[in-house]
């Protein structure tokens, strides 16, 4: 379970609080679980906390595999 959504870190303030942005929506987030977060990182946001950084190279790799699947299917169709 649980709804967690990738959001970009746009501000890091005091006491592990900051702001994240997704689709233009800006929300306060706590980085207590991820204190080494940096500006511009994508994080998984759950219940107002950043749980983990999104590993962008892994994301790109997964997307590459998926687009190969898409190509293969288009070729067959």
């Amino acid at each position, binding site marked *: 379970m649980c709804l967690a959504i990738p959001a970009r870190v746009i501000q890091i303030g005091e006491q592990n609080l900051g702001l994240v942005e997704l689709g233009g929506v800006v929300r306060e987030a706590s980085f207590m679980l991820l204190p080494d977060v940096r500006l511009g990182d994508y994080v998984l946001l759950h219940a107002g906390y950043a749980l983990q950084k999104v590993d962008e190279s892994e994301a790109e790799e997964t997307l590459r*595999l998926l687009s190969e699947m898409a190509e293969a*299917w288009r070729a067959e169709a």
Partner: protein
Amino acid sequence: MRYVQEFHNAAAARGLVAAIERITSRSLNLMEVCGTHTVAIFRHGIRQLLPPPLSMLSGPGCPVCVTTNADIDKAIALAEQPGVTLATFGDMMRVPGSYQSLQQVKADGSDVRVVYSPRDAVCMARDNPRRPVVFLAVGFETTAPTIAAALLEAEALGLKNFYLISVHKLIPPAMRALLAAGDVRIDGFICPGHVSVIIGSQPYQFIPQQYGVPCVITGFEPLDVLQGIEMLLRQIAEGRAEVEIQYRRGVRPEGNPLARELVSRVFETSDADWRGLGCIPGSGLKLRPEYKRFDAEEAFAINPPPAKEHKGCLCGDILRGVKTPPECPLFAKACTPERPVGPCMVSSEGTCAGWYQYGSH
């Protein structure tokens, strides 16, 4: 929206479905443990795309559904204490306890408030020092660290009016209990992606090692789910049983150790009662003795009425994957989303709600 929309691509979905079809040779039961997976599967119409020999079973990974009537009754009793504000995630509002739901108690005049984050409850307590705020701490390993962090913040602020009641539960012990019960044949597990963000892949190792059942830790966008299913089927076809990670952009094998450390600072494991699975040792979280002053049950002398189950409700069997919603005598008759009898119908990720809302085949 980055890292979301790309995982909805229709052509890639078609490619994955084709791969799944090629690789499905016999009747198989795949269990998705996590309620958010149940919702994703229904919401994107995935079931309908899968070849008929594949059965997707829903497991007990809906923290709302597995909360017992007794626990809900306790939360209600706390909400009914004069002067208390009960803060809760929205998920719990409509779940019926033995006699009523938090939503009904709110309609009766109790101060029940929905929050998005446990931090919001801490801020409520900070801003109203004379009003006790009790937070209903529900959720699995994904949510427990956020509660722990919020509690530590309440401690750092020196708050004397913040409390919580923990009905947290842990996933791997429940999966072990399911496998040990052996009620239903499970050929593979779609493991919860966000729980695994916290706990990593190691806690699932016993599943392939002791039971020979393959596992794939899967994300929640529709392409994640399809890719997770495909990876699981490939393990089965190749005779392998391992814990693989599909959701590699979120899950590291080691999880988030700091998050786990915060949880164990504040909580210790305990036995917990699960609807449908009974008491599972070591599957719950309770506050450590040094944090007992935040325990709502200790602070307030509540006396809930005796808990009772609703006759005919098959939520327990449905949570174990032993029965499907249409087999419940109450499904869509006495038990509907407007008038739920059991939690499986209330939670948007409850199996019964899913079947009712999104339709079965």
